[in-house]
């Protein structure tokens, strides 16, 4: 990966999502919660969902991790608002890449999908 690509991959958007994540915190009222940890790197996320008739009415998360993980969690949490859980469970790293408008290397896919996997496997 060239240096230019690295600069593009760490766009201002990604950095802002890392420093100012959307939907950070714990919902005061939630119907579902789930946790996902990546034991290889220490990234971890807990998702809080308020679900009504399979639709995500409200969402939040508490996340500690690298920039890719944090940015992915921020954009996916915002994307998931108003969508069906079943739809979110189908998302993968390519969807995260589209939402962030970057390419995600194979080495970083587990970072990019930590939040999605919390919902996919534990909700």
């Amino acid at each position: 990966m060239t240096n230019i690509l690295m600069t593009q991959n760490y766009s201002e958007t990604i950095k802002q999502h890392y420093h100012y994540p959307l939907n950070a915190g714990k919902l005061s009222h939630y119907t579902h919660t789930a946790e996902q940890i990546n034991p290889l790197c220490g990234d971890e996320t807990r998702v809080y969902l308020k679900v009504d008739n399979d639709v995500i009415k409200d969402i939040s998360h508490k996340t500690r991790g690298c920039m890719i993980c944090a940015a992915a969690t921020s954009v996916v949490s915002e994307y998931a608002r108003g969508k069906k859980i079943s739809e979110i469970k189908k998302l993968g790293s390519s969807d995260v890449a589209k939402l962030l408008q970057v390419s995600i290397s194979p080495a970083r896919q587990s970072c990019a999908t930590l939040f999605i996997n919390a919902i996919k496997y534990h909700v």
Partner: protein
Amino acid sequence: MTKEFMLEKHFPILNRKINGYKLVYLDNASTTQKPKSVINAVSEFYEQHNANIHRGIHTLSQEATALYEGTRDKVQKFIDAKHREEIIFTSGATEAINLVVWAWGHENIHAGDEILLSQAEHHSNLVPWQILAKKKHAKLKFIPLSPTTYQLQATSWDKLISKKTKLVAISHISNVLGTINPIEKIIRAAHKIGAKVLIDGAQAGSHIPININKLDCDFYVLSGHKMYGPTGVGVLYGKKELLNSMPPYQTGGHMIKTVDFDSATWADLPHKFEAGTANIAEVIGFGAAIDFLTPPLKLRGGGLPATLSLARRAGEGLLKHESALTAYALKQLQKIPGLEIYGPSNNKNRIGVISFNLEGVPPHDLASILDSKGIAIRTGHHCAMPLHDKLGIESSARISLAVYNNKSDIDKFMSALKSAQSILSLRGNPKQPH
């Protein structure tokens, strides 16, 4: 610093380009690269001598056995063990520790006993003891680290060792902090109260001389692939009388003397602890790695130049080169504001394993950017989660040096580190994303 030697000639992989850049490999605590002599030893075994060992009368089996047992003799000499049968080959340091946990620990640890570790142990020298302690209702205790020097607190271990302490298991060198632990003192203190001592030497094998005779520890483990040898090989050294007292760890072929339908008797040392078919080619490759590290000079076989060979006299040869490079790396890192090193800030009582965090630069993202410039570092918890908890961090970045690293590698790393800091910093006025 010693003259830069053209060690790329000995390590084929160092000529590779990664993402258009010549490889700068700084992940040696995880695994080291292999010299041609080691690679050739493995290939040559398969091309010329491949057969199972200890079983055949035919020529190939005799040759394979001689090569395999020849490595055992090399290891005995390398660590100054008294008897060759005290050298057991395992699949790695992890299996070596598990062997002690199950073959010695299971018989000798009882309810109420205490096992003393340190707060900085690798999971392989922690988790097996946790399982044993739970099973046998024993207690684990931990020698704390000094928050300023990162060394094991000498005043604490005297308080932690007691009549109940049956085993002390400590790393020779920390794979996160790079610190060389004062194991001689710990071994003496443990033996005074009758406790046995296991030393995890996974990080020590290629960096400092190991003199088992002088240390007098009860068990010592080595990791082959962390000392320029192939993966799949480790060594357990154990005192003969202890190994003889222990039941086998794995049973089956090769480790028996006699078998009938209902029972079996065990082979003598060392074979009692080497069940099944060994990783023969890898052990032989490991022998070539020991040749690479050991004086006298064996340049024809691709060994180290004499000034870089692993001398038993501290402060010479390899030690000098790595020590000087470590000092250089520490000095450069300390110039960066917002960079915190986890470990001693000078190169006394430490090797070139340097873990750190840089403000605003998450480790994994740093690793990606460095990789884009051909630089390999490690990030995460380095199989030492409790240590990271103790340090109050989730993860860290780590560079770890080997004999083929040089000043230019450190300079390239530092330049890329500063570049990463710039790439990852938030520019302009902070604003909410939309």
